């Protein structure tokens, strides 16, 4: 997955991303870091098609996909876990997962649900509960499971541990590591620099909507303290 010289913003007079470049190598876990407002989440929104770039291109599996609408991205093998809560609160856990099967061919839906319950057995106990009454960590698990219904090979995670208790956050990090072990391509945005970097293969940092640094985990770890100090000054 490649992001090439992307410029994007939410309002005509405002440009959030100013020529961002990024590569998420197949089977690797790439981490995107930066201070608040640097444009990390905007990069994921552009990659998933929720925000059209004004300039530049996004390439997935060798195809230019910048103009492909967001609802077709699942068909390209992409999965996206947006920032914040995104369960359908009035639908049960089972119904939330069923909505995730919508883009699949009808005969494949049952098997996809079975596979997800096998992968996340804890969900079985909550399947008939409205998702809105679950705890933050449980809702996060439902959101992750719902994303995995279509078995994506390219996974975009936007601050998956935000607002979670430490134990729940640790479980999410373990799931992120599992995605990486399974050979999926993962692009992770996270506020917890230390935890995210420890999982990563490659790290990018953004500042003011521009590329700042990039390097392997080992390269970044050597400079991590200086970089974070710099962000805190910003």
């Amino acid at each position, binding site marked *: 997955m490649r992001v090439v010289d992307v410029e994007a913003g939410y309002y005509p007079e405002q440009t959030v991303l100013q020529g961002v470049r990024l590569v998420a190598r197949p089977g690797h876990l790439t981490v995107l870091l930066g201070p608040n407002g640097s444009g990390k989440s905007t990069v994921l929104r552009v990659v*998933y098609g*929720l925000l059209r770039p004004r300039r530049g291109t996004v390439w997935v599996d060798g195809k230019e996909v910048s103009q492909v*609408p*967001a*609802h*077709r*991205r*699942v*068909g390209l093998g992409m999965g*996206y876990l*947006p920032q914040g809560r*995104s*369960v*359908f*609160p*009035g*639908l049960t856990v089972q*119904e*939330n997962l*069923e*909505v*995730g*099967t*919508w*883009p699949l061919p009808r005969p494949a*839906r049952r098997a996809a649900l079975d596979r997800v319950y096998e992968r996340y057995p804890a969900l079985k106990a909550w399947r008939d509960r409205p998702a*809105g009454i679950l705890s933050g960590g449980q809702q996060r698990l439902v959101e992750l499971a*719902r*994303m995995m219904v*279509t078995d994506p090979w390219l996974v975009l995670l936007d601050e998956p541990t935000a607002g979670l208790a430490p134990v729940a956050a640790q479980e999410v990090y373990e799931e992120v590591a599992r995605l990486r072990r399974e050979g999926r391509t993962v692009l992770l945005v996270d506020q917890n620099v230390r935890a995210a970097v420890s999982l990563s293969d490659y790290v990018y940092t953004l500042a003011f909507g521009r590329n700042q640094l990039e390097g392997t985990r080992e390269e970044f770890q050597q400079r991590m303290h200086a970089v974070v100090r710099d962000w805190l000054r910003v």
Partner: protein
Amino acid sequence: MTPALLMEAMVNGVFLGLVYALVSVGLSLTLGVLGIVNMAHSAFVMLGSFFALELLRGWGIPPVLAALVAAPVFFGAGAAVHRLLLRRTASTSEAMGLLVLFGLLLVLENGSILMWTTDTRVLPWQPAQAVLSVGGFRVALGRLVAAGLALGMIGSLDLLLRRTLLGKVVRAVGQNPDAATVLGVDVARISMVVVGAGTATAAMGGVALALMFPFAPQEHLRWLAWAFLVVVVGGLGDVRSTLLAGLLVGQLEALAGVLLPFQYVYAVLYAFLALTLIFRGRGLQSAQERVL
């Protein structure tokens, strides 16, 4: 006032309430799921009445069958309204959408006046005039058929929304359209389905109303007011709450009709609306969130 007359009024109130619920459920759905206030809703109710009239006059098709024919025809009309009008105004202000739908209401109303004049019509279906006597109660067959039709359609819609994947996706779009998009749902297409279904139920409601009341092209705004009353009382987007609210409104109207002079009937209904808004601002629906 005899107990038998009171009972008869209550039975009529149930019939009336079921039809009010059918007339309102489409408005509730489009408002609850899509946030669209369909000002043209009652024009489609009126067109549904004339649709039944034309099918009966032209081909002798009875009203129940006409309602079933109306479903796909008006679903298509609603889908076209979404594709040609609402989709284009979706990215503009809400006021623009309201204005466009109000414009559509005027076009449909005036087009209907050109076609059918302002004369008041009655559906010339003889069985509707028959009166059944069941256990001492007198029930007009037309009302019974209209209520049965309404109950069947509302039940089908409720089953569709709760039991089918399409229904679950519609409810998901109503709760979080962005999350639905991320999961691969084409929200624009689902919106088109919702507007189509809302328009189809409006037209079927029009067929049911034609079995109970005379109708004319310029008199549909009363049904828009009634539909808003039911939606406000019942809360948004929930079929069962809309049914309950329709039944309440029907009961109130029927009982007020026999207990009070006619001029007080509307006052009672609007007082009920005011009290509902004051004490239960989100309607009778007990859900904490706006959920389907």
